[in-house]
């Protein structure tokens, strides 16, 4: 009895999921090879739709995004590598099209910032600890209750 109820719920859920799948914007024909199809999905999710700038190519329903998806589809079929496809688009639309920016001299400081800050924090911590260690131990230190 309980099992049947669960089964019904599952059916309803999968029906709901199926209906959203039907609403998907990407009408590009699927690639014959599943590995290639996965690369297609990865690429279209990490490339920006330049017209509607906060959407990925995969999620955008503007015509230009559809054209670019087809372009990527065809380049994959032609045996191009992921990097070649990225370079192709960067040459036309600039690095802005990459959701994952590349490292270059212009933004190197940004990539280095976390490590530098960690280093600075470490340096400050060492300095403070050394200073405290050199202080004479007073009664206060030991008698103060942890309030």
């Amino acid at each position: 009895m309980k099992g049947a109820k669960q089964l019904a719920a599952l059916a309803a859920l999968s029906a709901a999921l199926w209906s959203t799948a039907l609403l998907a914007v990407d009408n590009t024909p699927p690639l014959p090879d599943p590995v290639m199809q996965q690369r297609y999905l990865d690429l279209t999710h990490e490339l920006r739709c330049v017209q509607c700038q906060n959407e990925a190519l995969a999620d955008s329903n503007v015509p230009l995004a559809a054209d670019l998806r087809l372009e990527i589809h065809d380049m994959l079929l032609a045996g191009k590598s992921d990097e070649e496809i990225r370079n192709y688009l960067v040459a036309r639309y600039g690095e802005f099209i990459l959701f994952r920016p590349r490292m270059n001299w212009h933004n190197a400081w940004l990539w280095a910032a976390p490590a530098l800050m960690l280093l600075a924090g470490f340096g400050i911590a060492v300095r403070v600890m050394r200073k405290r260690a050199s202080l004479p131990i007073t009664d206060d230190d030991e008698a103060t209750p942890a309030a």
Partner: protein
Amino acid sequence: MKRFLLPLGVFTLLVIVLAVGIYNAPKNGSKEIVSPLLGKSAPQFRLPQLANSAAQFENTALLGGWHLVNVWGTWCPQCRVEHDTLLQIKAEGRVPIIGIDWKDEDSVAMDWLSQLGNPYSVVATDHDGRVAIDWGVYGAPESFLVNPQGIVVEKLIGAMTMEDWNNRFLPHLAAGTPASAKAGT
């Protein structure tokens, strides 16, 4: 006093970094992407011409003189807005305008040109939008100024006004008119 020096220094540095960031941020929410095409050769292409689809238009036809390449479509409201400006630029006669009709229907495009006037010396039809991708077009209208060596020297995204034309495009023409003299430099 000395103990405040380091935090104050860090704070000042942060203020400078943020000030530079704000100063360089795109003005009034502009979404314009700087085209990587600037300073590079115009992309190669070969497209059928509007009104005479047996004839082709090739990028090599852009060499030897200045050209304004305008990507447009009858479905694009801003293209209607800039149309009168294009007619005016044509009337000035400084530079021929090459139209790339982007993902459009030929018959509708021909109607549009016969009704509103035709500012283009040639219109090439890009039905599947592949050539527009090569030009890095993402929102019509887009206009490119191509010099006699076939290099893209200026790009405008959005409807062209006479102000844009006079301030951003004409200075290139004025500076580079003796094209043969500048070719080697």
